[in-house]
């Protein structure tokens, strides 16, 4: 098997708030294989966005990478100099933000912002940049004459396409997309996902797709990394994750999600409780307080992410019983009050 494009090992990121440290990402590990789309899924505050930002090393002033490595094509993104990092930015690692509206400078035409990257970072001549910008717009399905427009003149979906075109500008190896379709309506969302999938296949790039929506992951991602309270709890191929999840949190998420393809509406089951305060994380497994299968052991000893079966990692003390737990998890009464 070939080397993964990005290999994250034991990555921790800490926000330093006066008197207190909030560990937003805690010893996270996962790989991004070449030419694949990896979903990074979890609820708000689980650390997925912080981690995604860390791959560009543009994180907030009070955040620090405290340990671990991010091996990208032979270079550790956590260790290389700022100069080396800046060389990689956009040329090798590009970013698609959630809101393209706020991420494009409102006072410049899109063409200018395209050229800024193509010429400023790609070293192209004016005419080369012009041709490339038109080509990029064509790739994402926008007419080239709209390059002369200002960002606010595009609709939400179109702006997101512009952001994707910008990300593709310098032929990066990796695109980190932070909730790129969350703000869009389902129809546009689907069209953009289709486009991303097609481009990723044609160009052979890798994409990290940060999202809270398992159905987006199910639709587009080859692999999925599930995060909970700053930790990676499960990592495997998406199909496996959806059919044979090993972690109770993943099982619960699926139960809570309405599925329009199912025969009836059935009953949706919530996961009771709320994620822990990351400034004071509990001892043991962070999901234990909400987990119907938690044992005493789970509340005192923190499970580590372990390989389980082929290419499937999970951080759960009861992963070996997963099959039995899955059967129980399918029953709403397992999760206690459903109201």
């Amino acid at each position, binding site marked *: 098997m070939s080397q993964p494009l990005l290999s994250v090992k034991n990555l921790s990121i800490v926000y330093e*708030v006066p008197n207190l440290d909030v560990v937003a990402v805690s010893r996270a590990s996962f790989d991004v294989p070449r030419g694949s789309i990896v979903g990074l899924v979890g609820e708000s505050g689980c650390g997925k966005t912080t981690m995604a930002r860390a791959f560009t090393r543009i994180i907030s002033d009070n955040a620090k990478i405290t340990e671990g490595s991010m091996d990208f094509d032979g270079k550790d993104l956590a260790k290389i100099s700022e100069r080396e990092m800046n060389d990689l930015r956009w040329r090798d690692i590009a970013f698609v933000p959630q809101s393209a509206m706020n991420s494009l400078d409102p006072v410049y035409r899109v063409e200018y912002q395209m050229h800024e990257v193509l010429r400023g970072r790609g070293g192209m001549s004016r005419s080369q940049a012009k041709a490339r910008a038109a080509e990029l717009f064509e790739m994402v399905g926008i007419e080239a004459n709209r390059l002369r427009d200002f960002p606010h003149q595009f609709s939400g979906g179109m702006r997101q396409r512009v952001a994707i075109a910008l990300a593709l500008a310098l032929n990066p190896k990796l695109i980190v997309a932070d909730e790129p379709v969350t703000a869009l309506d389902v129809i546009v969302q689907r069209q953009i996902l289709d486009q991303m999938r097609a481009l990723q296949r044609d160009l052979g790039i890798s994409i990290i797709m940060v999202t809270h929506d398992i159905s987006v992951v199910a639709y587009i991602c080859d692999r999925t990394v599930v995060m909970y309270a700053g930790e990676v709890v499960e990592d495997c191929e998406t199909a496996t994750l959806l059919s044979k999840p090993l972690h109770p949190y993943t099982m619960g998420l699926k139960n809570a999600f309405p599925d329009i393809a199912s025969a009836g509406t059935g009953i949706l089951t919530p996961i009771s409780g709320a994620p822990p305060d990351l400034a004071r994380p509990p001892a043991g497994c962070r999901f234990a307080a909400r987990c119907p299968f938690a044992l005493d052991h789970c509340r005192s000893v923190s499970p580590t992410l372990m390989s389980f079966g082929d290419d499937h990692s999970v951080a759960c003390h009861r992963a070996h019983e997963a099959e039995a737990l899955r059967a129980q998890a399918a029953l709403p009464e397992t999760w206690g009050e459903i109201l």
Partner: protein
Amino acid sequence: MLETTVPEGPVIRIFRAMKLPVGDNFAMAGLIIYVIFALTAIFAPVLAPYEPTEILYTVDYDLASDLLPGQEGHILGTTSLGRDIFSQIVFGARAALLVGLTAAFMVAFIGTIVGLISGYYGGWVDTILMRLADVAFGIPFLPFVIVISAFLEPSIWNTVIAMALVLWRDTARVIRSQVLTLRSRGYVEAARVSGSSDFKIILRHIAPNIVPLSLLYGSIAIGWAILTEASISFLGFGDPNSISWGFMLQDAFASQALSRQAYHWFIPPGLAIIFVVSAGFFISRGYENLLFPKLGR
């Protein structure tokens, strides 16, 4: 939200309840200056060694004119007519306090009411009030105050009213836009849906969010009013019966204090004005930090 818990006295607690910007260095400096200023104004007769308009004589029965600071026990010296400059400064605080507070109150009051009504009710009421504000923005402020002060009897009150007639516009516009955002907040709409009357909604949900903003504009208006009164007095349209810092400067200017190098005469009133007006600015900055913390100004 993490707040360090420092034991607080009752005064600090009251300040916090009023959303006064305690804890901000700028604002605290401003508040302290205001306290000194208010005490000076209140206790002026006690603090001032002489009557401000009294013509003084030296021990040798000469006119005590143009004395330098320290001479004959005059802290800041005397004017060319033999009046004690320090006493005038102390009494000037009274005029400034009076003008500043009344004008600021009127400006904040009118502006807040207009802004509230305009923003909450919208429609033609809003259109009329905002066109009025446009007109107020088209009136040159200082010339207007000059003309009013000169034509009506020159008095502090006429100056204050003239200022309030124009300056409400800024407050009204800001309050209006704030009310517009508040009006579309979910909890205000929830109150409407649950049947609360407009009066109740304004009183309970909107006004509490507006008051700090009114105070902010009030504290800016204090400075404006004091500066304007100084200009009016300097130009000779001021209240002849009150000693204000602007009047002192006019007196100095007209008495050739500049060519006679009488710095001790015209520097102190100017510093007094700067001191008090910038205190208002300091407080308003503190307020801004408190009201709009994200901006990090």
